[in-house]
């Protein structure tokens, strides 16, 4: 059974059909890509799957269970984490605190326990801190743990955002243009990084990306959107030869 599946997903904003009849099925352990020209509806798919938008039609299934219309924080608790196209870090909080915010949704201590610093809260806070530091070491940001997140270099901010998503304990990770603004070397590092976390955290991943080098090097399955319609889906090699995809990206020969 697919881990995440969309059935006839529709999203219209007034008269604009941002997405029509999307049928996407990501199996457990899949590394899927979502590509398409600007305005094709890729980010709309992410906003629907992560609960920031409610679809105007169709269903979203998580392990076969209908999760359409659940609020974002509930979906994060279920195990769907995401990053944003234009990074959204908590700029004035420290790098470590950004990670700890991600852990917060797994905490069981109530606010009363937190205020009174009762044992359960203290235990949770201790484990979160050590796990947070371990996570930072893994993504290579341990030295910057106490720096304000907004002051980090751009590439590090990108990695921190992924680390924060990992802190929420996801099974399914949505990456919205993780390579935007990275140079070829950094893109290569990112490919290794994404493969690494996928293995270690046993993740299924869906990536939106313009950078075809990254998508071709990483994904085993691509879905191509154009004007909200699915114009092709399948193996990256086949997609590259698909005339509809070439037309969408390069325009048709008259």
């Amino acid at each position, binding site marked *: 059974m697919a881990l995440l599946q969309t059935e006839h997903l529709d999203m219209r904003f007034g008269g604009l059909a941002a997405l029509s009849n999307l049928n996407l099925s990501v199996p457990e352990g899949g590394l899927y890509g979502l590509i398409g020209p600007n305005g094709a509806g890729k980010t709309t798919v992410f906003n629907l799957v992560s609960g920031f938008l409610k679809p105007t039609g169709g269903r979203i299934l998580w392990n076969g269970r209908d999760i359409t219309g659940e609020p974002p924080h509930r979906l994060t608790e279920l195990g769907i984490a995401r990053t944003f196209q234009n990074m959204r870090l*908590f700029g*004035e909080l420290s790098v470590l*605190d950004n990670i700890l*915010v991600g852990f917060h949704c797994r905490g069981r201590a109530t606010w009363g326990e937190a205020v009174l610093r009762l044992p359960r809260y203290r235990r949770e*806070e201790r484990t979160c801190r050590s796990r947070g530091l371990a996570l930072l070491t893994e993504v290579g940001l341990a030295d910057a743990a106490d720096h304000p997140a907004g002051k980090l270099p751009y590439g590090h901010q990108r990695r921190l955002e992924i680390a924060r998503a990992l802190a929420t304990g996801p099974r399914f990770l949505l990456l919205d243009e993780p390579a935007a603004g990275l140079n070829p070397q950094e893109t290569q590092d990112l490919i290794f990084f994404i493969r690494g976390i996928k293995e270690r955290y046993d993740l299924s991943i869906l990536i939106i990306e313009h950078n075809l080098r990254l998508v071709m090097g990483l994904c085993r399955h691509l879905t191509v959107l154009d004007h909200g319609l699915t114009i092709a889906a399948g193996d990256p090699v086949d997609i590259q030869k698909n005339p509809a995809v070439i037309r969408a990206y390069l325009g048709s020969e008259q």
Partner: protein
Amino acid sequence: MRLLNNVAIFITLAVAYNLVNGVCGQLHLGPNAFITLGAYTAALLTMTPAEKTLNFIITPLYWPLGQIALPFPLALLAGGLVAAAFGLVTGFPVFRVRGDYLAIVTLGFGEVVRVLANNFQGLTNGPLGLKGLYPYTNLWWSWGVAVVAVAVVVSLVNSSYGRAMQAIREDETAAKASGINTFRHLLLAYILSAFFFGVGGGLLAHLITTISPSLFTFFLTFNLLIIIVVGGLGSTTGAVLAAAFFTLAGEWLRVVEEPAAIFGFTIPGIPGMRMVILSLGLLLVIIFCRLGLLGRREFTWEGLSRLLRRGWSAPAPGSGAK
């Protein structure tokens, strides 16, 4: 004495206000509503039945409030709980909106409560207010409450819940994506601050012993807003210092309103002069420290020791270097 009590009450109010405005970053403009509720609840509960009949000459007080009289601590607690209950009820509509809209909704609730207090004669005695409250508020009570309020707020802000609240302030969308139930966290901050507003209102009522709706206008909210902005939005230390400074400065500056002789000229007292000086001070703070006096910094013992060490070692920077 009265001044020190005032300082403590304003510290309580400012620290609670800072929790919603500074830490969560929501512009809440209705603390006067909660202070009113706390003040009236506590006052109605401590007054003896005899005093109540003296006060309510136009419309009698609703039964059974006319008969009961509670000890001061219980009345304070009740004031806080009534304010918190009002927070729970208003929190649902308030946190459906954000930003300017949230400010307007909370401002509206502040006015609603004041107008109700003016017209609900059977409960509040209308514009006449309540007179002759016993001055229960002493330094023990006011400072005791202030210490509890500061301790609770500091502990909360430094916990994972406080971190989540700051995350909401920084970027609410990202906070939601990180699994934070933003509504519940905002409601928690809002209700907790409402509780302390209520208790602070009860203390205030039993300090000045006479309350009327005109005491709890938007002006009170505005003063609190000035205090937390000058102290540095988000800094509890700043809120405490600014609350103390403001209450004290307001009194000390009365000197400038008295007739004085400078260089042989006799200047008659100018009423309102202290307000002019206070606002000049405010202007300077806003011009020279955009984030308030403390920004988002907090007092820590490590910070203090670092400052002291730097102070001592500063005169000898060359001696250590080769």
